[in-house]
């Protein structure tokens, strides 16, 4: 066919030599650089399938000579991250929990670690903002049934509250007074409890409840109704009610009692995570300094950090 090849006058290009009914084709091959690039890509592609996981087999793909896998990459990254965190976690682990707020940087780190753990383990009851709901305490406020300093919060998280089958758990049980009070007595105790926090003016009915309260309730709630933290007896004089502060709710509480349960986390979480959780809960705005809670270890803890030294992560 080469004898039919000729130079086309109009374009100056050689024809391929085919001719159909007078129609000819110009020979305009792919540029050499294009072809070389194409061949290089083919070679590269073949090499790639040998070097890297590529060919699908029955249960998995070929592994490739380099042994690379995305799962392996992830494992490597996770390992590096674990190694990066190790010294921080070790520092948190080594420090007594009540001393963590004294170390600004460590405290800030612990708060962030606690925030992450809280989102996984605690939000189911306490809510994603730790604001709680009826029966589940709001951890942002300044009212604590068992105490709000680092060590106490740590103790509560570690051993839980009324955790079943856990000997060291925080335990308190309000009796159900349903059968013990006559209806009129019950009403007067409810009125007295309401008057303690000022949600109902003190009157004859509430005054009638005072002696009943003194006889039955002060062991846990204190003579003035301000609660006894060591007993887990809530403060009845403040405006915060875990189960509601209206007449019906208080009546129900006294009649049938309440029995909120929090698990002991020491079996599920490691000690460092629990410390970080304590730091996070402590940081939410209601955290108390150890001295105020009257804990023996208070001497070792610096007093409440002044605002000027507020812990904060400096972003550079």
């Amino acid at each position, binding site marked *: 066919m080469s004898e039919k090849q000729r*130079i086309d006058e109009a374009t100056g290009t050689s024809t391929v030599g085919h001719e159909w009914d007078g129609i000819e084709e110009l020979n305009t091959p792919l540029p050499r650089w294009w072809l070389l690039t194409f061949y290089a890509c083919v070679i590269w592609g073949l090499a790639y399938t040998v070097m890297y996981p590529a060919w699908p087999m029955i249960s998995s793909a070929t592994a490739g000579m380099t042994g690379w896998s995305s799962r392996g990459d992830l494992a490597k990254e996770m390992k590096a991250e674990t190694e990066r965190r190790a010294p921080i976690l070790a520092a948190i682990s080594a420090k007594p929990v009540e001393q963590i707020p004294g170390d600004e940087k460590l405290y800030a780190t612990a708060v962030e670690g606690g925030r992450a753990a809280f989102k996984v383990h605690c939000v189911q009851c306490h809510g994603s903002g730790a604001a709680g709901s009826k029966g589940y305490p709001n951890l942002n406020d300044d009212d604590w049934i068992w105490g709000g300093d680092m060590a106490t919060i740590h103790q509560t998280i570690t051993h839980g509250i009324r955790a079943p089958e856990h000997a060291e758990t925080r335990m308190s049980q309000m009796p159900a007074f349903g059968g013990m009070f006559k209806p009129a007595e019950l009403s007067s105790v409810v009125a007295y409890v309401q008057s303690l926090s000022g949600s109902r003016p003190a009157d004859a009915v509430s005054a009638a409840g005072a002696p009943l309260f003194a006889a039955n309730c002060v062991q846990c709630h204190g003579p003035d109704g301000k609660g006894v933290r060591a007993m887990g007896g809530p403060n009845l004089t403040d405006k915060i009610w875990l189960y509601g502060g209206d007449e019906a709710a208080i009546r129900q509480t006294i009649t049938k009692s309440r029995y909120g349960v929090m698990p002991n986390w020491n079996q599920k979480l490691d000690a460092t995570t629990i410390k970080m959780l304590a730091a996070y809960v402590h940081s939410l*705005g209601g955290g108390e300094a150890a001295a105020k809670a009257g804990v023996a270890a208070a001497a070792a803890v610096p007093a409440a*950090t002044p605002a000027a030294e507020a812990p904060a*992560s400096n972003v550079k």
Partner: protein
Amino acid sequence: MSSNNDLLVDSPLGVYQKRRGVFPKIVSGNFRRFKWLVMAVTLAVYYLTPWIRWDRGPYAPDQAVLVDMAHRRFYFFQIEIWPHEFYYVAGMLVMAGIGLFLVTSAVGRAWCGYACPQTVWTDLFQHVDRLIDGDRNAQIRLHNAPWSPSKIARRLLKWAIWLVIAASTGGAWIFYFSDAPTLAGQLFSGTAAGVAYSTIFVLTVTTFIFGGFMREQVCIYMCPWPRIQTAMLDERSLIVTYKDWRGEPRSRGKKQVTDDGLPAGDCIDCNQCVQVCPTGIDIRDGAQIGCITCALCIDACDKMMEQVGRPRGLIDYCTIDDAEIEKKGGTAKPILETLRHPRTLIYLGIWTSIGAAMVFTLGQRTRLDLNVQHDRNPVYVALSDGSIRNNYTVKVRNMEGRPRDVTLRIEGLKGGVAWAGEAERDGATQTVTVPVAADSVLKVRLFVAAPAEGEERDDFTISAHAANEQEKGDTDEVVFERPSGEQ
């Protein structure tokens, strides 16, 4: 095949044109001297700027010009730009763009001819050619000569010098992004970041190829700017003009031609203008995209005109308007009048007003910035005494290179008190003072408590001031939320 190629080149249908070698001859003259000067200045600025030191105190780098990607800061002498102030960089880019328009409108393609890096480095590489291979004729001879040991040796030597220039070009670039002396040490001890080496590699390769081999092809085929400039130029733009009304008809032996009684122009067809052209064009064909207006042909032509005893300026900077006037025997307008051109003045106005606005805002900006975000979860917290607390995440930016105490103050919230971090509500007042490290952002949780009685959404302000300083602070309007209705 070769006959095919010839056909292709001459064919109007051909798509690619094979590069014809350009071997510009060395020339001397005013424009050449000016080009030397511009080359010296631009190269000096490029290579030396990162090494200028500028004392900013102990908390900031001491490099005068530094694009600190790692810490998101841009330092330019006493100006420090934070990422949120990027509009200054955008403004500079806009000014650079309009500045190009302005220069083009006033003096044509002066950027292309003198200051463009492609021009400067090509010029530099062409001088290396001359140093190793000799001037134009020697270069052409060597180009056409078959490969021989001496040609190979010369080529290798030349390419080695190109490579050194290219590598130092790429090498200088990275010093703008890190402390130059430190990075230089790391670079040679092999401990610099990988990106430093890869940047040098890429810039070395591009400089080597663009400056050594592609040269004028970059201007003619790759660069968008000549296309834009063809739209920018008009009858009153300065372009390098061959004054054909004076030069034509060209005559080689002028005396002989005039003796024969034939008309003869000033152009003696010596081809010097073509030989010195770094893009290899013939300016006598008129204005064209390949002309970067480097004016070397003006130098070359002036020299010839002097030798044959004719006035200089057969090839000269000239506007199309002036060309028309000169054709009719008039004299060209003075240069100042040419520059007084509405479009030039408008560009100048826009350019200077952007510049003035940037300088003004730079002078006005405060180096303390406040950002308050109301915590949404929970929106409010009821406290045991019945009052309400709202939490705010406050970010205080201290944009000065020294640590400062910043006072946060709440105003307009009845009975409100504020405290931060681990402080307690007891003894809280309307102000909180926090220390902010030099040149950094402090994130602090601000607790604000106020009585439950009040608006469901109470507007108030949080302001930040540097304690014991006069500088204008920053104020944010925020909302204090309370539970709605009976709760």
